[in-house]
């Protein structure tokens, strides 16, 4: 059953990310011209519920998604199994989630 | 020589339709039985049941009847079939097809309204052949194989049966000597009951259809045990085998009957149609007539580069041919031929062996404990097997054998003792090629294929048959003086080639002997010196037996237990 859950979580997170990433890519290409500076970015994002939700959701989804993806790779390419595999995947998930949420906080809240 | 001994309740040799059905039924009848299947190839992947294309005869469609199926079988077999067996075949085919569908999960082709589709097959007065496209055998054997692999039976794959072992007192069967082909080790399996379902297979002819693992081992073993073999002259030839040169295993494989039915033309080497010179139906005449006509053309030298004739379909329109026979077109293309637009060389090819061990309708033999079913058993088809009755035969009687063996093995308390010296002698016999200097096995094989094709083939006469007997005797002693170029017993195919040849030559001698003994022409057996059918009322079948290396053939009158010539059940 574990694999079913992981599979569904990975596909669901992928489906969530798809539009977010499309937006992100669009915005990036749009804003990059002439260089970006911090103020510009932060002006757009600070205090914006839209961007907060957007990035927040992305961070959660990507942490789930990438941790599961990495788990598959570690298992298949490095033959990691059992508890070791679980620990690494969870650490990656938690690390990514924390770093991500911190970044969101940085660009949205402060 | 050391050998391992194993004990089991039910031992089955072969995993075609007969072997697998026996395992399934024995296990269903008594799940506590210890069942072992030993097979020369992989379980379910060897043998001819897989190769069935056309389909399965069964009287299931409205308007058809078991009696009609029976009458077609008797007429097709030229009144030689054992009528009790034929009746059992036609009756049980009905339950067997329902079993295949409902319990095993086969799904045969349907009409649009969801009812079973029945197609026409040559020699039958009703459309009664159920099928799955033109790959019926794959459907049947795959479903069977899945079921059997899911049972807890012992599988001895790539184990070749070498000898049937009588009990010390010779009153019953004690077991079977086998060699594990993968390791070269010998094993004796002691069993309360043994089914021999190794599937005959006339692969001693230059051109033949059966799978490469079939080499008449079963009949050779039965012969050595002293059992009677009936109808041994009856070798069915399929008129259109692919001809692609001597050095390819594709040569001899079947090109579908439907090609002729759909209007394909047979052309001699110069491109002329010839079938109308032999029969008003032309290419649509029955298998035996077309085979004889092609054989006659070949003998007259009007042949293609490889020595056969052509089949041409292109006049029907290449697109149509490609659409109607995709499997055949693809298969020919894989071999480098364009069936749809070009010509393909064909030749009659040995297809099926009607002869076999004398058995009762419940698969028992003269040796208590030994059961025989499928192509190894003689009697159900007489002089000719109807297309579609082959797989019916193996699945019907395989199942019956399973039921019977379960009954006997459940009751029987003892395992008979075998004779160690007998086993030692059989092992020695099989190892003899390792003691000889390397010989020309390929040359012996070639000569066997040629002599059987030329002199014991589609057209026969006394001179040719006697010539063949002499050559077969020579070949036998040459083989026995020939050794192998590789002395490792592990998965040594050359050793098994040697053993195959040994079985084939032994059975070929019987075929030639029986053919010489039948002085008339019936079904698959055609004597140019005795072209008459002979009196139906006085029909006889041949029974061959081996006594001290001598083959004797006697004639026994056919018992018309259900219908007499001139009568009919319908």
């Amino acid at each position, binding site marked *: *059953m*574990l*694999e*079913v859950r992981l*599979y569904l979580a990975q596909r669901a997170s992928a489906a969530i990310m798809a539009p977010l990433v499309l937006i992100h890519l669009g915005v990036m290409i749009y804003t990059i011209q002439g260089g970006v500076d911090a103020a510009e970015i932060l002006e757009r994002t600070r205090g914006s519920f839209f961007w907060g939700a957007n990035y927040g959701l992305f961070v959660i989804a990507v942490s789930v998604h990438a941790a599961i993806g990495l788990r598959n790779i570690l*298992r298949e390419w490095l033959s990691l199994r*059992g*508890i070791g595999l*679980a620990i690494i*995947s969870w650490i990656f998930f938690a690390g990514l989630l924390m770093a991500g949420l911190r970044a969101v906080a940085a660009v949205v809240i402060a | 020589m050391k050998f391992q001994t194993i004990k089991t309740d039910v031992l089955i040799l072969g995993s075609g339709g007969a072997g697998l059905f026996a395992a399934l039924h024995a296990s269903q009848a008594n799940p506590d039985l210890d069942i072992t299947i030993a097979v020369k*190839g*992989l379980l379910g*992947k060897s*043998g001819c049941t*897989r*190769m069935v294309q056309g389909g399965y005869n069964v009287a299931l469609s409205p308007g058809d009847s078991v009696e009609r199926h029976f009458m077609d079988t008797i007429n097709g077999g030229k009144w030689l079939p054992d009528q009790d067996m034929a009746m059992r075949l036609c009756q049980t085919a009905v*339950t067997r*097809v*329902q079993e295949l*569908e*409902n*319990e*095993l*999960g086969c*799904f045969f082709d*349907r009409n*649009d*309204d*969801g009812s*079973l589709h029945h197609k026409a097959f040559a020699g039958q007065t009703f459309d009664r052949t159920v099928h799955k496209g033109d*790959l019926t055998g*794959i*459907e049947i054997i795959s*479903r069977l194989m*899945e*079921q059997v*692999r*899911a049972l807890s039976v012992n599988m001895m794959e790539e184990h070749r049966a070498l000898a049937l072992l009588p009990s010390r007192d010779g009153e019953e069967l004690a077991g079977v000597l086998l060699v594990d082909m*993968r390791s070269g080790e010998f094993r004796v399996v002691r069993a309360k009951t043994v089914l021999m379902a190794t599937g005959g297979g006339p692969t001693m002819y230059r051109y033949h259809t059966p*799978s*490469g693992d079939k080499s008449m081992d079963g009949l050779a073993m039965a012969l050595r045990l002293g059992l009677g073999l009936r109808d041994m002259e009856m070798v069915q030839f399929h008129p259109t085998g692919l001809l*692609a*040169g001597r*050095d*390819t*295993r*594709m040569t001899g*494989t079947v090109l579908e009957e439907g090609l002729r039915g759909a209007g394909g033309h047979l052309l001699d080497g110069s491109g002329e149609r010839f079938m109308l010179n032999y029969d008003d139906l032309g290419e649509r005449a029955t298998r035996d007539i077309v085979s004889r006509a092609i054989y006659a053309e070949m003998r007259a030298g009007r042949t293609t580069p490889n020595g056969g004739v052509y089949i041409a379909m292109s006049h029907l329109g290449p697109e149509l041919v490609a659409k109607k026979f995709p499997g055949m077109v693809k298969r020919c293309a*894989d*071999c*480098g*031929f364009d069936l749809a637009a070009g010509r393909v060389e064909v030749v009659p090819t040995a297809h099926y062996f009607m002869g076999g061990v004398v058995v009762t309708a419940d698969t028992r033999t003269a040796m208590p404990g030994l059961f025989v079913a499928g192509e190894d058993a003689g009697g159900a088809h007489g002089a000719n097997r109807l297309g579609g009755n082959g797989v019916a035969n193996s699945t019907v009687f395989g199942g019956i054998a399973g039921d019977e063996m379960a009954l006997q093995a459940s009751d029987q308390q003892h395992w008979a003792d075998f004779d160690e010296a007998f086993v030692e002698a059989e092992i020695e016999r099989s190892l003899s090629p390792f003691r000889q200097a*390397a010989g020309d096995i*390929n040359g012996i094989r070639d000569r066997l294929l040629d002599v059987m094709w030329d002199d014991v083939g589609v057209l026969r006469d006394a001179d040719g048959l006697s010539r063949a007997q002499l050559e077969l005797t020579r070949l036998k002693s040459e083989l026995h003086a020939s050794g192998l170029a*590789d002395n*490792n017993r592990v*998965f*040594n*195919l*050359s050793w098994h080639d040697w053993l195959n040849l040994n079985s084939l030559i032994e059975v070929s001698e019987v075929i030639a002997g029986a053919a010489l003994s039948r002085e008339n022409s019936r079904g698959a057996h055609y004597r140019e010196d005795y072209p008459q059918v002979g009196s139906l009322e006085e029909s006889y079948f041949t029974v061959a037996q081996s006594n001290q290396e001598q083959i004797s053939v006697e004639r026994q009158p056919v018992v018309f237990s259900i219908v007499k010539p001139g009568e009919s059940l319908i």
Partner: protein
Amino acid sequence: MPQQSSQTILDVVTWIQRHLDAGLSYRFACRVGMCGSCAMMVNGIPRWTCRTHVNKVMRDNSLTIEPLRNLPLIKDLACDMSEFFEKWTDSKGYFQGSTTRHDPVSTLSPNSPQRRVADAATECINCAICYASCDVVNWNRDYLGPAALNRAWSLQNDERDSASAERLSVVAGDAGCHQCHSQQGCATYCPNELNPTASIAGLKRMVAKAYVRGELGAGGKGRQGPESDA
């Protein structure tokens, strides 16, 4: 080695056994593409050797013939196919009906969408070519593999079968359909042009639906991955 106009890889192997190396081990039976016994790696690609013409695969006048990948070797060119078939059984790749031999054959339209799906996946000759072409099989020795899952999918669409819930929980197990990454070697090389990728995708959908509805059994008795709970 003499070249002939009609010559398959199996013929080449046979010729070598008959003329050069009498001890050479390989396997075949039907010689016409029906038994699936003769598969080998030909120039690195898994193929049915009895139906592969030499001209089609010859590169620079040379051929490399090796035993099938992903299966234990017995000797030379012959592999042990046991695990392939054990997985077939483990994935409940066999029919369980609800009627018997004493009942009439079911009346079922051959044209219903479900029947077509079941039929499309049925002409498998268990040659293990797909199994050899799939890297996941190599990376995860428990993976049931394309052929077994393809069979399971066919059965899941057979309305006469009565074991679909059980089978679904097995193929949803840790060695089941979710291990497939759609590499599609199976569908690319299957000599019968079957499409295990599509079958496995179908199973994934079916499992997802059952999971969402809470209908998925607890994994059945089938193969468990090495880390059933991580």
